[in-house]
């Protein structure tokens, strides 16, 4: 009889073996996908991220802003730096002294250091700050030249292409600034005459009004561009940095319309997004005239009512499963971070993903990570009110799945 039970026992053992695929801890999973919210238990602490880079050790270094709680310090935003490890765990942070304020993106990696522009709160003179990957020390040096009120910068050919504001001459200034603080070139363009033109610009710096999507960079055709105020209007201005007049201008709608994100692709092809009286339009595959005067309102685009009014938009050029993909990140009315994926070559929509729930989430930056995944840095509001920096890491596999829906 007992021998008759052997087959049954065997079946049971096989059943156990089949069902006992137990779950083992895997640090790789913990690196590939995570969500981290960096909390400070001070009631009045307020931090927001500006840009993020992945460090060679797989961790993340974040450039952020902080509310200066001491009224004697400055009305501008203070500088906050933070380091997280490759699991997204907090490692170290640094509140830079309020003798430097108003940090702006890009947070650029150059020769083992990370550079960004900020400014002197008294003179408003632009400064170049650098920090090592472990936040051991910050070095800040003034930009040698007339650049004041830096608003944004991109790091191209080992130099910053920065856009700032000269409030003495009422000009938007584009400048090329070296990591050592040397100003290699600059050119100013009038914003127009009158206090009303200047008011939204100053409110932007003091963060008491609309945060405009200032930007600057270099187009593939060799022209420099800035996204800022020109001739009473928020415009995308192309310049060779020598002519007194711009080569080309794509005009917005005074302070109520313009481009919310600009990413040069090839030739005159750009990935863009624009805002117009609260509405938002995505233009993932657009050929833009870089000369003459044109209007953003003529460009059309995919209208996305789900986005908040005049939404902040970030565009990342990424490689997903050997395909070049444009990832648009923005803030939705449901207080999530929306990611929209487009085929770079055709501009075709290929997928989407929404991050965050329960508490509000807002986007700050997108980074493709060394493992082929995506790291989204943003702000969330713990308990619905305390602004805190967060990182949402998506694995390579999830990214591929999202971009192929």
């Amino acid at each position, binding site marked *: 009889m007992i021998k008759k039970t052997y087959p049954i026992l065997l079946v049971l053992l096989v059943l*156990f073996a089949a069902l006992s695929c137990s*779950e*083992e801890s895997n640090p790789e999973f913990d690196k590939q*996908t995570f*969500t*981290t919210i*960096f909390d400070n*238990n001070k*009631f009045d602490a307020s931090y927001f991220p500006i840009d993020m880079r992945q460090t060679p050790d797989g961790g993340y270094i974040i450039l952020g802003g902080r509310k200066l709680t001491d009224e004697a310090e400055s009305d501008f935003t203070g500088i906050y730096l933070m380091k997280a490890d490759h699991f997204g765990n907090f490692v170290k942070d640094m509140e830079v002294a309020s003798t430097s304020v108003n940090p702006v993106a890009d947070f650029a990696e150059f020769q083992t250091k990370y550079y960004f522009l900020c400014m002197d709160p008294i003179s408003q003179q632009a400064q170049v700050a650098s920090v090592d990957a472990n936040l051991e020390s910050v070095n800040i040096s003034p930009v040698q030249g007339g650049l004041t009120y830096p608003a944004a910068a991109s790091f191209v050919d080992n130099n910053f292409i920065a856009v700032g504001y000269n409030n003495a001459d009422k000009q938007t200034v584009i400048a090329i600034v070296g990591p050592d603080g040397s100003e290699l070139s600059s050119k100013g363009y009038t914003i127009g005459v009158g206090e009303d033109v200047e008011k939204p610009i100053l409110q932007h710096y003091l963060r008491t009004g609309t945060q405009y999507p200032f930007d600057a960079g270099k187009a593939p055709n060799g022209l420099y561009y800035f996204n800022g105020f020109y001739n009473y209007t928020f415009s995308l201005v192309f310049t060779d940095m020598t002519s007194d007049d711009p080569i080309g201008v794509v005009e917005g709608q005074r302070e109520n319309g313009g481009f919310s994100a600009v990413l040069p692709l090839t030739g005159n092809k750009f990935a863009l997004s624009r805002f117009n009286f609260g509405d938002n339009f995505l233009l993932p595959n657009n050929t833009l005239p870089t000369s003459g005067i044109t209007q953003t309102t003529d460009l059309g685009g995919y209208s996305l009512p789900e986005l908040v009014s005049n939404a902040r938009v970030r565009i990342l050029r990424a490689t997903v499963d050997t395909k070049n993909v444009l990832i648009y990140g923005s803030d939705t009315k449901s207080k999530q971070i929306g990611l929209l994926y487009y085929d770079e070559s055709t501009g075709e929509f290929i997928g989407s993903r929404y991050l965050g729930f329960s508490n509000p989430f807002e986007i700050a930056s997108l980074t493709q990570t060394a493992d082929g995944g995506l790291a989204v840095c943003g702000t969330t509001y713990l308990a619905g009110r305390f602004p805190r920096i967060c990182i949402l890491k998506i694995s390579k596999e999830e990214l591929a799945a999202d971009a192929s829906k």
Partner: protein
Amino acid sequence: MKSLTLFLCCLAVAIGVSGQEKKRKQSTYNKAKQNKEDNKFLDKQWWLGFKAGVNLSGVTVDKTYSVISPTNYEASTIGKQYDNFKLIGSQATIEVSFYFKRFLLSFQPTYQYSRFSYENNFEWNAQNAEGGQTNHVELKYEQEQKLDYAIFPLLVKYDIYGNRLRPYVQAGIYSAMLINATKSLTASGIDNAAGGENQFRSESVEVGADDLFAKYHWGLMGGVGVNYNLGNHVRLNLDVMYKYGMSNISSTEHRYGSDRLAGVGDAMDDLTMDNISISLGCLFPLRFLQSTLQTLDK
């Protein structure tokens, strides 16, 4: 390592069964012809049973995870506080056992509904120049896990003594397959930022959480019980079982898979789950000695 342990457990069960075959031969030799018919019946019998009852679950944390990473206070202050063995679950079992010489090899597929809970507490404070507290917000998230498992236990039982009343001990291994998982989240707290103490409590939110839990886990089990012969070949069974989880019940790959839960700072820890259950049921013999359907139990 745990796979090896599983294999060894299975091997032990097989050896135990094999050993009993030898014992049976010796016993038969020594007690030749005594109550031959009785022994025939008792030496080999199949039993089929049904039982159901209640259970309590508790977890052991192998590794802690959290979405919230504190920058100016200790992470332990916001750690999860588990309420173990407090929430009642239920289970229903079909039992198929083969009996010989007081030993039973028993397969008991079970549907088990388990619950456990934990809570996180967060605080934000503001202090004035004198160090006094001026503003204060407390937030508590209570999370209840509701897990449905198909459990496949393989047990060896031993009848300690008796005829009509037959207490037994049992030990074995089990494998569990997740059928369904949900989490319910309730937020509550105190907010005195508005000038007074504002206590609030949100409605519970139910979230599907299948992806947050491992599809399979396994463990060891042991227990005691008693069978009572009702006199008409049917045995009433009271069974107490303790399951000791050996593998992680959380999904390591999809720990942050729920935006809704990650958004409030929740990530599942690596956990093993223990469970204590009490069941009441009936056992029916599948082979009868006499045509009158009478068993030999006195």
